[in-house]
């Protein structure tokens, strides 16, 4: 189905402006996407008409806000095809979701000598929490190496798995390279050894249909702000039976059943992991973001973005001196590359002057940059409101950069 791009773009006010005297071309969607009017309006509506603290009030506004917030949880459940809303835990973002799991399992599962496997193409937020978990528990961190193609070395992964492996975590799509990892296989192999698995879906949920039941990961997390929603909200999906066994994370209001000075009993899922007043406006914004994605159609988004990526790759390949960093067979959402002899900072600075927003640098994945021996890369990442005409502007910008620094 062809998308009505004009209608889609009309929903994103931020796109309709000039930057440095040029029409904005926003290709930094892997960092954060722009927000449609329906998300902005849902948040404004909440503060204008509905603001109240949730879950505890008997008054009208509290009931209204609670219903809306819980409707967001149901929307996420639907988006992920999760079994139950109890499995949907709101966090501040992917980073907090990962830290929650790392922290709770450090206190309840990891023992000295246990092994935790991550991959060589993780975002810092899926590296550092596991280093901290190892430091505190005495577990050992193992890393699945990456091949020159940007794909994970699956043979090496199989060799790393053993009876000491307690936990495996990888991203679904690499934010630095765009590699789509074979997570179904990674999950099945880990489960065969009795290890738990967490999938960092930050780069997947905005771009592809995710079915957590079919996937069978024990934990799956993502951030709302990369999928047309507000910043400050993320989601941890966990299997109910595992979440029930885990100790709570933050202590505070909301997460308790009964508090005495002798001891406290904890609330049921999902509230057990949601201490403190949550980001209510953010949750309500997420609900609108899910509706936006459903209205456009998640599959339509995926297909259209694949078309954009293929077009960008084709055009970039025609340019002499373009060096792709990561050329996995299965890529999505973004392209990471360098121009021979030109520093990404210089390229990014000139593109910015031309109104083109891309990301340059290490993309919070320094080990990936070290592995490919580059100071950073230029990364263009796409969303459903981007167009082929914008890619043409971007390509012309690259030629300008080459002219200046070549």
């Amino acid at each position, binding site marked *: 189905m062809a998308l009505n791009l004009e209608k889609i773009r009309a929903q994103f006010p931020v796109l309709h402006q000039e930057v440095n005297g040029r029409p904005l071309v926003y290709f930094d969607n892997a960092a954060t996407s722009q927000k449609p009017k329906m998300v902005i309006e849902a948040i404004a509506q909440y503060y204008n008409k509905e603001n109240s603290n949730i879950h505890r009030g008997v008054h009208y506004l509290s009931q209204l806000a609670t219903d809306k917030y819980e409707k967001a949880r149901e929307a996420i459940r639907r988006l992920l095809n999760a079994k139950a809303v109890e499995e949907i835990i709101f966090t501040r973002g992917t980073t907090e979701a990962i830290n929650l799991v790392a922290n709770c399992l450090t206190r309840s599962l990891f023992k000295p000598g246990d092994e935790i496997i991550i991959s060589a193409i993780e975002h810092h937020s899926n590296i550092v929490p596991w280093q901290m978990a190892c430091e505190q528990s005495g577990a050992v961190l193992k890393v699945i190496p990456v091949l020159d193609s940007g794909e994970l070395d699956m043979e090496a992964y199989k060799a790393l798995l053993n009876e000491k492996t307690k936990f495996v975590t990888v991203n679904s799509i690499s934010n630095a390279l765009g590699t789509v990892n074979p997570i179904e296989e990674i999950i099945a192999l880990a489960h065969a050894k009795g290890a738990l698995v967490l999938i960092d879906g930050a780069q997947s949920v905005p771009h592809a249909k995710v079915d957590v039941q079919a996937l069978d990961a024990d934990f799956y997390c993502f951030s709302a702000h990369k999928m047309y929603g507000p910043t400050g909200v993320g989601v941890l999906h966990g299997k109910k039976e595992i979440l029930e066994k885990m100790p709570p994370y933050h202590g505070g209001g909301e997460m308790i059943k009964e508090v005495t000075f002798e001891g406290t009993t904890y609330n049921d899922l999902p509230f057990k992991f949601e201490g403190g007043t949550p980001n209510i406006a953010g949750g309500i914004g997420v609900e609108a973001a899910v509706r936006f994605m459903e209205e456009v159609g998640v599959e339509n988004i995926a297909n259209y973005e694949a078309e954009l990526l293929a077009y960008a790759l084709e055009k970039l390949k025609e340019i002499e001196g373009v060096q792709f960093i990561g050329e996995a067979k299965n890529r999505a959402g973004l392209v990471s590359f360098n121009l021979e002899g030109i520093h990404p*900072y210089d390229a990014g*600075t000139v593109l910015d*002057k031309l109104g083109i927003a891309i990301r*340059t*640098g290490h993309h919070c994945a320094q080990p990936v940059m070290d592995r490919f021996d580059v*100071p950073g890369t230029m990364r263009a990442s796409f969303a459903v409101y981007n167009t082929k005409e914008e890619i043409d502007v971007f390509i012309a910008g690259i030629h300008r950069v080459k002219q*200046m620094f070549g």
Partner: protein
Amino acid sequence: MTIKEIQDEIIEEFDMFDDWMQKYDYLIELSKDLPLLDEKHKLDENIIKGCQSKVWLQASKEGDTVRYTADSDAIITKGIVALLVRVYDQQKSKDILENELHFIDAIGLKEHLSMTRSNGLVSMIKQMKFYALAFQAN
């Protein structure tokens, strides 16, 4: 020339340019003029790591003045590094510590000193002043 006079001279040079393109072309030119930091000084202890680009800075004491040489792996950063060296090189520690830099703002390159750029330039300015302070104390 004093630090202020050099800065005013730079501002005057940049006044000739009509658009950003000419300014950046000039920075690229300046980056070529910068005496490259001797490879032996490209040590970890002289490196100022930004998220985006790296800067190397080396300083020495010459009488009551400070000598600076510097380099960067990105050309635009290097052009600005060249300007900073031009302003502070061979100046007295006291003058380096007392004079504020006003030229970067005035020539419209302030964005390169912003938080998000993280190109090492802000740390470089701090480090230049730190050397001046250290040499003054000795």
